[in-house]
């Protein structure tokens, strides 16, 4: 389980995240939605530990079993295979696990390609492979399909669903697509100006938003 308590993040005196209490249950899938600048990335970075909050507490039960994929994951200049292997312990199964993960995201034919020569969508698929190449208790993904085409998005969503179901890990991801949140998440958290305005079962929040901000955000989706 992972939880945040009284977390406040300030940048240049401006509050960009303000969460009194938020708990994520083990093995569940959560989708963070909200407009640009609503605090989705900041929340994920705080949960991952790459951003220290100005104040407050983050409790992680298995900090060593956490995987975090930033919005623009870096693709190293060595081979795609090594890009995935770098996330794994140096064991005899290392290569096989990396190949299997790349296969799952449809990148079996890219093993020898240089990471820095991939397109944005390919780099994102490779980054997802880096996440699922080993068992993790918690996956934090910042817009994991923002650069992929429809096929790539479909492939990543199916891969993540399979991984989450088989491993029993907690999945927390951000997205601009309410449809994706509905497909992937069991619970949806709606953020607005750094605050959580809605949290609940995905369909319930998306179908029947309780706040004006969420209604305005979701009305575009309905169009």
């Amino acid at each position, binding site marked *: 389980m992972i939880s945040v308590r009284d977390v406040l993040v300030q940048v240049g005196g401006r509050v960009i995240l303000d969460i009194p209490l938020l708990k994520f249950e083990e093995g569940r899938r959560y989708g963070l939605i909200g407009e640009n600048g609503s605090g989705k990335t900041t929340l994920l970075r705080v949960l991952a530990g790459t951003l220290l909050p100005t104040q407050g507490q983050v409790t992680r039960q298995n900090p060593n079993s956490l995987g975090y994929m930033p919005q623009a994951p870096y693709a190293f*200049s060595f081979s795609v295979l090594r890009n995935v292997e770098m996330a794994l312990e140096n064991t005899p199964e290392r290569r096989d696990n990396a190949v299997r993960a790349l296969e799952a995201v449809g990148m079996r034919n890219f093993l020898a390609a240089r990471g820095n020569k991939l397109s944005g969508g390919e780099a994102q698929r490779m980054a997802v492979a880096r996440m699922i190449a080993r068992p993790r208790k918690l996956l934090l993904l910042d817009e994991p399909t923002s650069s992929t085409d429809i096929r790539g998005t479909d492939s990543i969503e199916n891969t993540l669903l399979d991984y989450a179901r088989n491993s029993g890990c907690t999945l927390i991801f951000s997205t601009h697509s309410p449809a994706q949140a509905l497909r992937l998440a069991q619970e949806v958290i709606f953020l607005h100006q750094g605050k959580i305005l809605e949290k609940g079962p995905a369909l319930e929040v998306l179908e029947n938003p309780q706040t004006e901000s969420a209604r305005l955000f979701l009305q575009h989706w309905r169009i």
Partner: protein
Amino acid sequence: MAKTMDVIREIFGLLFGQDPELRQIIGVTLRMSTLSALVSALVGIPLGVILGSTEFKAKRFVNRILHTLMGLPPVVAGLIVFLFLSRSGPLGTLKLLFTVTAMVIAQIVLITPIMTGLTANIVSVKAPLIHETAAGIGLRPFQRMLYIIYECRVQFVSTLLTGFGRAIAEVGAVQMVGGNVQFKTRVMTTAIMMQTNMGHFEFAIALGIVLLVIAFLINSLVSRIQESAGLA
């Protein structure tokens, strides 16, 4: 026309002949530039990596000092080293003034801030992305730092060669602390200046051509390294 042809013939004769002074000048120049670029890289690149990849309170102030030193006029660097190494200076007993070592020291004073600044700029662009990604897959801070250095390696070579290019083309500081002593501390730039003043244009042009060829080779080497690393 006949005179022009004579000049060209003399230039080629100097370039491909056995002129001992020209060879000696080229030798001292290459030795001094290589040594000063290497020592500056050994100091400047690690400092640049630290400066570019870490956040600390006085960073802005340090950057301001660094940018000032990057624009340090060569004669000022030469003057500082001269005062330190002169007989009445704090390092006068070492008797280094008017030696190649003094010229290397002056070059290091000039080039190290440039290498630190260039490295810090390169690292500060890549480090946050690499740090975030590497931390996300569970790599330790030391491993992350190694990957940052690895990913910037080609730019570091370019930085080193930039430093070498700066050293080989410098004239003010090496003139002051080296003294342009024949067969001892005379380098291409100081020789070009002296020969031009004396009206020996053939010798000056021959040296100028050598300098241009070296600059071309350095640029070719940088491009080659970048291409082979798949970054060009």
